[in-house]
Each structure stands twice: as structure tokens, then as C-alpha cells.
């Protein structure tokens, strides 16, 4: 096994130069190349699923179903969609022209940005690496992927498979941590796509600013769940559980972070949750194989600290068991922790679920609005008016009513944040657009030149210009006929 080479500034510079040469040579521009690369990614999904599942079990203790469905299947769908739609996506879009530019025709042409950098995260290491890469390749870019070092088996497997299958003159993987990422960020990229924390998002954007590099930042936040008493409680609770503990054990950017409900309804919610949690994970959830573990001891300690805080530890109404050696924390529910506690001040990203109670449900909107904008906000209710108000007044990356997280799987909806939860969006065609420059093209005729455009300027020209601006045919004629 070869020793890992140090990757520093010089390596980063050579890497970018190489890829830029490939891009300038036109390697990535053609439809055929893009399709070939996408098909290779599909082969990776089809032929290497067991290895991917194994790597995810190593890195995260992820259950096979989650790996298979939330990483591989989602990727497979994403690739197939791109293959099916690519010709459409690549076609220029006609644009309308107006009287002021007549005679002319206009269109918008999608062109690749050039050489792009995708920095991925550890919680869905395959999905969050390859999905953006699908966008980058579909749009015709050369791309460097830096997977997260906190999921080392996945990172190594990604590097191996991508080198094996994809065109390394234009697609590369750089493994590593802070040193390597810093070296990469010093280079000039044509776009940077980052998935991770808001803290590092700032670092990425500041580095990008030096080169005027546009960015997509898929960050996170505390995604609230508002539970109305006018709902189907069993379905609600099952979806919350599946969306929280069933998705990487709460370590997902759109994980339900905390629940808001009325004082009256809370006991019912808690009882229903306890019941369904037992149905899903048995009487001894620490032994259940159906949940990912906590990724590493740093995060375990972080979550421990959230639970151990004074005024919080006595609010546990279910769970709370911890096992540091096996990096497990039981599904834990807390009731009415203080708003200024640590657990309510940072994105939990773990299997802890605070429930906050209010006198009436409307107050939940104010609670949410007083906090940084999250990536997702959820509401469970039958009440149409409440749904309307929620959708229009709560600002978040995306809003989901009566379900959790599924909007991730919908390629017809843009997936991205706002404010602290990020900027830009992707999935489906939005991925293609995220990695494209939409170039405006105007075709004008050399006939039909109006003296109005040129000096020397005069009142008559001014009147004609005014009429043109108003696109008022009558005024134009009047001026031309000298009647005005």
C-alpha cells in the first residue's frame, strides 16, 4: 500500500493547471463525454453497492437500508434523470425581444463555468459527493471532489472508484483534511460547491471572494417541526421518527431538530413518540441495528455536553442512555429545555429531540422567526389556513407540510438554504444550472439603424427616444411624420 503523499499548495496548483488545460482543450464540453461519465457513475452505483454499504457501515454504522436507499438509490435516480434530460438542459433557451431592440433575436446559452471544486460532508458521504459532481459533469465542467476525512472508508472508496471509472484528465478526487482543503481553496476555481457547517461556509466564501468565485453553500440550521393538535398523530410521529433517527440518527442537515407544540398537546405527542419509538427500535434501542451510530468521539462528546448541561439534564423524558465506547446515544426526548440552553443554540445533529411547548400554536411562528433561518421547516396539520400562513411567513430553505425530509428526493424542487442555512440550490435541473453560466446572446441585424442612437443630440431625437421607450406605436409615428 503506497504511503499517502502530502498534498500542498504546489500540488493544488498543478492539479488546477492540468484540469484547466483539459477544459480548454474541450474535453468536457461534448454531450458524449458528459454522457459517458454519467454512465460510469451509474456503473459505480450498480456494481459496487455492497462496498459502498460496507464503507458506510464502517464510517457511520449506517444500516443497509439507509445506505441503499438514501445514498445509492437517490444517486441512481439523479444520474438517470441527468442522462434522460441532458439534451434538453443543454439546449439554448429562446428569449423575447422588444420594440427597442427590433430587429433582433435572442437566446440564452448554457455554458460550463470551467474548473469547479466540490467539497463534500461526512454524513451522506456518497450522496453529497456524487450528486453535486453529477451537476458539474452534466454542465460540462472539469471537477475536483474533496470528500470528508471524517468518513475515511467512504473517502478512500470514492477516490478508488472514481479514479477507476472516470476520466482523470478532467475528474479528480483529493482526499484530505484541513491542510489539503486550504491548499485547494487558495486556487482560482470557476465555482465552489460546499456542503457543511455555517462556520466553514464563511471560510469557503471568504476564500472564494479573493478570486470572485461564485459559490453554492449547502449549510444547516435547526429545522423546527410544528405539530398541531389537528393532525393524525400516529402518522405524524412515525414520520418524525423516521426523519430523525431513521436518517443517519439525526445527523442530517434537514433533520427535525426540535418540536414546537401546545402545552396541552405535548403529553399526547410524547406518549405517541414513546410508543412508536419502541415499535421501531425495540425496548432496547441501544441494541437496535436500525440506527447509525454517532460518527466519532468528538461529536459524541459534543452531544453529551448538550445533554449534561444543568437545566437540561433534568428535562429528559425518554432515553438519555450513552455508550461512549460504541459511540451510541439512545433516542432521547427532552421537554421544555431553556431557550438559551446549548442544545437550543446550535444545530443538534444527533439523536436528541427537544420538545418546546407554547400556550398557543401561533407563537411557534415567532419562535422560529426569532432564530437563524433553517434549511427546512416542518408543519404537521390538517388546517389549511395554518399551512398557508406557515408557507408564506416562515422563511427557510424549504418548507415541508405533513412529512419530513422527502423533498430531498424531489428533483423538481430546488434544494438549498437561505441566510445562515446557505445560498444557491441544486437537484435535478437546478444542479445543471448551478454549474452553468447562462450566457445572453443577442443577434441583431445590420439594417434598420436609427439616427436617434447617435450624436449630435437634438430635441427631435429625444422625443423619438421617449416614444420608443414607451413602445408606443402612435407616438413613434407621430414623431416620424413630424406631427409631434
Amino acid at each position, binding site marked *: 500500500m503506497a504511503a499517502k503523499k502530502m498534498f500542498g499548495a504546489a500540488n493544488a496548483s498543478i492539479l488546477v493547471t492540468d484540469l484547466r488545460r483539459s477544459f480548454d482543450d474541450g474535453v468536457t464540453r461534448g454531450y458524449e463525454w458528459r454522457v459517458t461519465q454519467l454512465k460510469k457513475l451509474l456503473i459505480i452505483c450498480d456494481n459496487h453497492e455492497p462496498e459502498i454499504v460496507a464503507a458506510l457501515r464502517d464510517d457511520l454504522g449506517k444500516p443497509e437500508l439507509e445506505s441503499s*436507499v438514501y445514498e445509492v438509490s437517490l444517486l441512481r435516480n439523479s444520474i438517470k434523470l441527468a442522462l434522460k434530460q441532458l439534451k434538453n438542459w443543454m439546449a439554448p433557451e429562446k428569449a423575447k425581444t422588444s420594440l427597442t431592440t427590433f430587429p433582433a433575436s435572442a437566446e440564452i446559452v448554457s455554458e460550463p463555468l470551467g474548473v469547479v471544486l466540490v467539497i463534500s460532508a461526512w454524513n451522506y458521504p456518497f450522496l453529497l459527493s456524487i450528486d453535486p459532481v453529477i451537476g458539474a459533469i452534466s454542465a460540462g465542467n472539469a471537477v475536483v471532489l474533496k470528500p470528508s476525512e471524517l468518513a475515511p472508508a467512504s473517502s478512500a472508496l470514492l477516490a478508488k472508484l472514481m479514479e477507476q471509472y472516470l476520466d482523470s484528465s478532467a475528474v479528480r478526487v483529493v482526499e484530505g483534511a484541513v491542510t489539503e482543503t486550504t491548499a485547494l481553496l487558495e486556487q482560482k476555481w470557476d465555482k465552489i460547491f460546499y456542503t457543511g457547517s455555517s462556520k466553514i461556509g464563511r471560510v469557503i466564501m471568504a476564500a472564494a471572494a479573493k478570486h470572485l468565485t461564485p459559490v453554492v453553500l449547502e449549510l444547516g440550521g435547526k429545522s423546527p417541526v410544528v405539530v398541531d393538535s389537528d393532525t393524525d398523530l400516529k402518522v405524524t410521529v412515525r414520520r418524525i421518527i423516521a426523519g430523525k433517527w431513521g436518517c443517519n440518527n439525526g445527523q442530517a442537515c434537514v433533520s427535525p431538530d426540535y418540536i414546537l407544540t401546545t402545552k396541552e398537546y405535548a403529553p399526547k405527542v410524547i406518549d405517541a413518540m414513546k410508543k412508536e419509538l419502541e415499535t421501531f427500535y425495540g425496548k432496547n434501542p441501544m441494541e437496535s441495528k436500525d440506527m447509525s451510530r454517532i460518527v466519532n468521539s468528538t461529536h459524541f462528546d459534543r452531544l453529551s455536553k448538550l445533554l449534561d448541561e444543568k437545566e437540561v439534564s433534568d428535562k429528559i423524558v425518554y432515553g438519555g442512555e450513552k455508550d461512549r465506547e460504541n459511540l451510541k446515544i439512545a433516542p432521547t426526548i427532552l421537554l421544555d429545555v431553556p431557550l438559551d440552553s446549548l442544545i437550543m443554540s446550535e444545530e443538534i445533529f444527533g439523536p436528541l429531540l427537544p420538545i418546546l411547548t407554547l400556550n398557543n400554536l401561533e407563537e411557534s411562528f415567532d419562535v422560529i422567526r426569532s432564530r437563524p433561518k433553517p434549511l427546512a421547516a416542518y408543519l404537521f396539520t390538517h388546517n389549511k389556513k395554518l399551512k398557508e400562513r406557515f408557507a408564506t411567513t416562515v422563511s427557510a430553505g424549504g418548507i415541508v407540510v405533513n412529512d419530513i425530509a422527502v423533498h430531498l428526493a424531489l428533483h423538481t424542487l430546488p434544494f438549498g438554504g437561505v441566510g445562515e442555512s446557505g*445560498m444557491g440550490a441544486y437537484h435535478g435541473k437546478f444542479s445543471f444550472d448551478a454549474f452553468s453560466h447562462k450566457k445572453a446572446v443577442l443577434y441583431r441585424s445590420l439594417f434598420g439603424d436609427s439616427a436617434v442612437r447617435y450624436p449630435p443630440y437634438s430635441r427631435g431625437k429625444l422625443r423619438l427616444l421617449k416614444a420608443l421607450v414607451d413602445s408606443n406605436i402612435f407616438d413613434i409615428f407621430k414623431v416620424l411624420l413630424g406631427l409631434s
Partner: protein
Amino acid sequence: MEGMKETVEESLREMRETFASGRTRSLKWRKAQIGAIYEMVKDNEDKICSALFQDLGKHSTEAFRDELGVVLRSATVAINSLDKWAVPKHSNLPLLFYPAKGKVISEPYGTVLVLSSWNFPISLSLDPLIGAIAAGNTVLLKSSELSPNASAFLAKTIPAYLDTKAIKVIEGGPDVATILLQHQWDKIFFTGSPKIGRIVMAAAAQHLTPVTLELGGKCPTIVDHHTISKNIKSVVKRIAGGKWGSCSGQACISVDYVLIEKSYASSLIDMLKPTIKSFFGENPKESGCLSKIATKQHVQRLSRLLNDPRVQASIVHGGSIDEEKLYVEPTILLDPPLDSEIMNEEIFGPILPIITVRDIQESIGIIKTKPKPLAIYAFTNDENLKTRILSETSSGSVTFNDVMIQYMCDALPFGGVGESGIGRYHGKYSFDCFSHEKAIMEGSLGMDLEARYPPWNNFKLTFIRLAFREAYFKLILLMLGLKR
């Protein structure tokens, strides 16, 4: 500056309060504000033209064509289209998710900052303002201190017409901008140089504020004499208009330099000279139709560009400078060295280098050695050349057989790429520029699928795999027990 700091904080507080009140969400309010901008421009045409004349020596016809007319048209389009723009976009969801619904709604970012420029101080302030208001934001405009009369007009008149709790103007220079940039905004829109663009983006990165940067570059103009010689008169006029007819070459989309085959260069020059005379007479300084240079410093910069002895030697027309009168004569250069300063920075003045090539195809290679410009212009009827230009170069936009007029086509996005900028606006793109596209998904509480929930088993895994592949028939077989 302490006073300014307090003013900024107080303004922000008031704008955020106004935004939170929901007043700017109403389409009626937005249309009323945009209508007020329209009225303000119409009522004060003379004052505005006078201010522009004082700041830049702009003739009122040029002022109308490039500034007032643009704003009037932009306001009209926004008012007429706002209802359509604000309609949610419905998305089709896959059958698996039936009866779920998906849509995307445009919501305002919140409180936004517009940093304007001095060369088109009215349109580059009011046009983004219209976009910000149309999208429902509260907005603070900082006008440029280098166009003091226009800035004073805006600072004095906007409060008389618009909702002062939602729309504010601050005058000042870099020190005021620095104070503004220390605060958190929900969006920043900047028009100016790439150098300051970097500073703006770096400041925005501290708060994860999305930015639109309308920057500049050297906009090349290819003249393919072979295929347009029949219309050469129009071509020459358009080039001359694109260089000297709009703010004396101080526009982000001005013709920066021309590329033409060596054998045709002198006939081009021979046609440009009388064209200049027809525009500005014998003494352009006294014509009243040629804008001034912004400040003495800008004149000195242009002077310095011309002082390079090799550049001096290339002057074939003009070259005189009157620093007192802020005047630089319309100047033509023939083949200044490609490594001279004037060929490596955006000229932003009335100096036109003509660069000759042996074969017009070579012009593409020259363009590619420079940063991506805001616009590329090409006068040609050669379809092959057009295709090569479109696919081998990158720029904000490409216009064939004309210059500058893409600005008037509001169905085309106006913005740069690479060094020439991030983001775009005009027409609906202005509305989108200041909006967060929020995805909304609504699921149904009925129709719950057991396969969604733990404990996991092979049946559920197979079910979900098939569901993701939308293999509905196989799914039915599975459920009927007819498939393993």
C-alpha cells in the same frame, strides 16, 4: 463617522422592523412604490438631466436614453408584470409521492443593500432598487460620491416620493461603504470594479450574505470585414457610438478595443475619423455631446495609459487631454503592444485601441488570454465564426452585429461571469435576483406506507428500491406476494 455609524444602525433597525411588519409583502405596496419611482423620474426630468450634466457633462438626450428612459421602462415592466412574477411555480411530483404537491414561491430576502456606481448614477441606483422593491424587500441605497449632484438628488428626492421606513438613501464614499459592509444584510447588490467587488464579497462572507456583483472587463469588438463590408457604414457608426456615445467610454459594456484583420485596419480608421467628426464636430470638447471624464484622478489614469511611449507611438487620432476641463479627446490607437497597460486593464474612457490580426479567427485566441468580460461584440455574418465565438469564448453576454443594446433587452439576463461578475438582473431577473426561491412540499397524512418505517427487513428494502426506480408494476407484484 460616529454619527454615520448610528445612522446606519438606526436605518437597519427601522428597515428590519418594517420588513417584519409585513408591509412590503403586499403587491399593492410594491407597485405603489415602483409607481412612485416612475413619477419621481417623470416629475424631475429637468433636475435629473441637470445633475447628470453637472456631474458628467451628459447631454440630456444621452441622459434620457441611458438613464431616465431605462428607469421608466424598468418601472413600467415591473408594475405590469409583478402579478405574473409573484405567482408560485407548481412542480410535478413523481407518482410515488401522490397525492403530495410541490411548488416554489419567491420570497423577499429581507433587508438589502444596493451599492451604486458613478457613471450611470441614476439608472444604476434606481434599476436595482426597482428589483429589490418588486421582490418585496426593504432596501438601503448608497449612491456614489463621485457623482455628487446625482447622489444629492437621490438622497433628497427619494424620501419625498417613497416609503421612508422601507427605502433609504445614504450618500458617501468608501468610508461609508466600509461601515455599511460591517453589518449583516440579507442581500448585497454591487455595481463597480472587480477590485472592490472582492472587498464586498469578502465582507458579505462574514455574514453568509448572497451577493450580485456587476463588474466589468475589456469588452472586445470583432470586426469581420469579409462578411460585413456591405454594411460597413452601420458597423462603424455602431462601434463609434459604443465607444464615445455613452458616457465617453466609461460604461461597463463600452466597446473597449477592436479586433480586425490588418489589411482593413486603415480603412476602418479612415471611416471612424469622419464619424467622430459627425458626432462631435471639429472640436469635441465644445460639442456638448461628449460626456466628461468623472474626476481629475480618472483623467490622470487615462493620461498615464497614454504616456507609455509605445502607446503614444500608436496614436492615429486624437490624444489631447485637458485635465481642468475633465476632457480626453476621442482617441484611436493602432496596435498598441498587447503587454501595455492599456491592453491589460479596462480602459473606461474614450480611447479605442485597434488590434490587428492576420486572420480574424485569431481574435478568439487574443480574447481568451484576458479575463472573461461583461460583453463580447462581433460584427460578422460568418456562421462558423459566430459558432466559434459562442463556444470558445466566455463572457456575460455576446451581441452580434451591434454593441451595448443587449442592455435594453429585458428578456435577457444582464450580468457577468468570472472577473466580470456574479449574478444577473433586468426584467424578471431583477425580481429573481432579490428573491429566495423557497421550495414548498405538502404531503398527505393519509396513505401511509409501512415500508417507510423501521424495523427494517428485506421486504421493506426491496419495496423502497423498487419505489425509487418508479418500477410501479414490480412494486404491485411485490405487495401481492408475487415477487421476492
